[in-house]
């Protein structure tokens, strides 16, 4: 295969597979994007894991453990996809730990109450689904297939988050207040998940041309807002945007775009929890080093025995 064969496949909306020839830029873009996705899955475990011990019912505790487990599974799956492109999980983790690769910025916000666990799932998993449904048609075959499975689970998480909030919405005054406060906190970080406007996005154009991405940031963000409005009504919560209203001419809701300067600051490391999230991740990795080493040494011993 050659560059013209590659271009032909892309133009015909066919999938690129890992054995196929691909331009270096395509490979690098994919690795960057898949690694960031994988990092977001495993970093995203933290704000939720912090509430497992205190989950106020056993049923919710089980759901929350399962969700955090799914995120670990997605991480595993996505690192494996990156490995089909020649990257190694270990190196990608190093890049994460050293701050050379990023993860989604919403993870750097705190989950202050039990309601935040629900709001985070409803809004950020909701945004992730909108993003990823579009990505399922990405031109790289292994990534697209991984996304199909991930999307299914994410949309389950999204529904569970909604369900958690729905119970609070019919609960005590304190529960209802915490619901509104949590939604107030998570609306902006969720909107910001779609990244800067297309006009300011550094990677969007080439990713669109290669059909790694299939839709622009602005289009996806609009889709997300339009989906959230009726759900917020069902929950009886107010989305914290005075400019939010239906625009019959556009057939969409008008809304205030997220604060991109804040997004850029948080991505650059200056959010409420950047330091702690990364420090937590590094500590877990360092404290696990002797365990991973023991497993490797043991496996080598077993292999030597079998060879002998």
């Amino acid at each position, binding site marked *: 295969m050659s560059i013209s064969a590659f271009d032909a496949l892309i133009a015909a909306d066919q999938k690129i597979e890992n054995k196929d020839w691909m331009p270096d830029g395509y490979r690098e873009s994919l690795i960057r994007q898949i690694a960031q996705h994988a990092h977001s899955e*495993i970093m995203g*475990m*933290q704000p939720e*894991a912090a509430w*497992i*011990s*205190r*989950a*106020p*019912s*056993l*049923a*919710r*505790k*089980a759901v929350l*453990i*399962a969700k*955090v*487990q799914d995120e*670990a*599974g997605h*991480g*595993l799956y996505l*690192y494996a996809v990156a490995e089909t492109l020649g990257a190694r999980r270990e190196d990608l983790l190093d890049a994460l730990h050293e701050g050379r690769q990023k993860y989604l910025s919403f993870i750097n916000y705190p989950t202050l109450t*039990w309601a935040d666990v629900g709001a985070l799932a409803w809004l950020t998993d909701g945004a992730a689904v909108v993003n990823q449904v579009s990505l399922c048609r990405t031109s790289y075959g292994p990534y697209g297939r991984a996304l199909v499975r991930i999307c299914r689970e994410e949309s389950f998480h999204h529904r569970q988050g909604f369900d958690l909030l729905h*119970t609070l919405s*019919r*609960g*005590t005054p*304190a*529960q209802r207040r915490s619901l509104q406060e949590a939604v107030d906190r998570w609306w902006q970080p969720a909107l910001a998940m779609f990244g800067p406007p297309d006009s300011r996005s550094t990677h969007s154009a080439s990713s669109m041309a290669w059909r790694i991405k299939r839709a622009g940031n602005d289009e996806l963000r609009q889709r997300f807002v339009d989906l959230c409005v009726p759900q917020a009504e069902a929950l009886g919560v107010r989305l914290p945007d005075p400019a939010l209203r239906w625009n019959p001419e556009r057939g969409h809701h008008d809304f205030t775009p997220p604060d991109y300067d804040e997004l850029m600051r948080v991505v650059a490391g200056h959010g409420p929890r950047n330091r702690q999230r990364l420090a*937590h991740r590094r500590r*877990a990795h360092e*404290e*696990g*080093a*002797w*365990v*991973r*080493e*023991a*497993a490797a*040494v*043991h*496996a080598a*011993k077993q292999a030597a025995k079998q060879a002998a």
Partner: protein
Amino acid sequence: MTGLPEYLLGLGDDALVAAQRTAEWCAKAPQLEEEVALANLALDQLGQARAFLTYAGELEGEGRDEDALAFLRDEHEFRNVQLVELPNGDFAVTVAKTLFLAAYQNLLYTRLARAAEPRLAGIAAKAAKESAFHVSYASLWTVRLGDGTPLSHRRMRDAVEEVWPYTHELFEPWAPPEAGLDPAALRGPWLEVVGRALGEATLTRPQDGWAATGGRSGRHTEWFGLLLADMQSVHRAHVGARW
């Protein structure tokens, strides 16, 4: 003598507290494969806890569901063994705790699956399958760590010695007629299962010495109060709320 409802509480509390501890590993495990596996263990334990507690609450007949039992009992009303309360320590301590508990639970559940009481037998049959996986998982890691590096060998050995005094309580005479078994009779087969893993891990079985006791009658370790304070905090801060 222990009645069936109290026995079910004990089984449920063992599983509940074990789940609580295991889930503390979430987002802290040594690698992603262990994140997935430990979450599995925690979910299995939690599922068993819910089944046993629900059943206990119904037999008791005072309208307490699984959440009332988990979140609204005080420390001295819990009936779990002290083994499951021990802090997770390093990964080796968690592996040792898991091995010892799972080997016991697997033997116990397998026998309870033949109990005359059909509901008890049903819960136990499902749990027996789950705990069989827990035994293999913990055995595998016992061997990897024990027969890994010098450091991991030392840590695994220390962990086994640290947890060993808490294993005796598992075999105390504490089972109602409905269970149809004598817990003490499980210790022989348990020593075999555990001894096999330890042997393969190049570790020796610790001497029996001081033995923890008291959990079944509500006397718990210094750590248990903190575990409950954390676990029950949100539930108790909102009296009468639904979740």
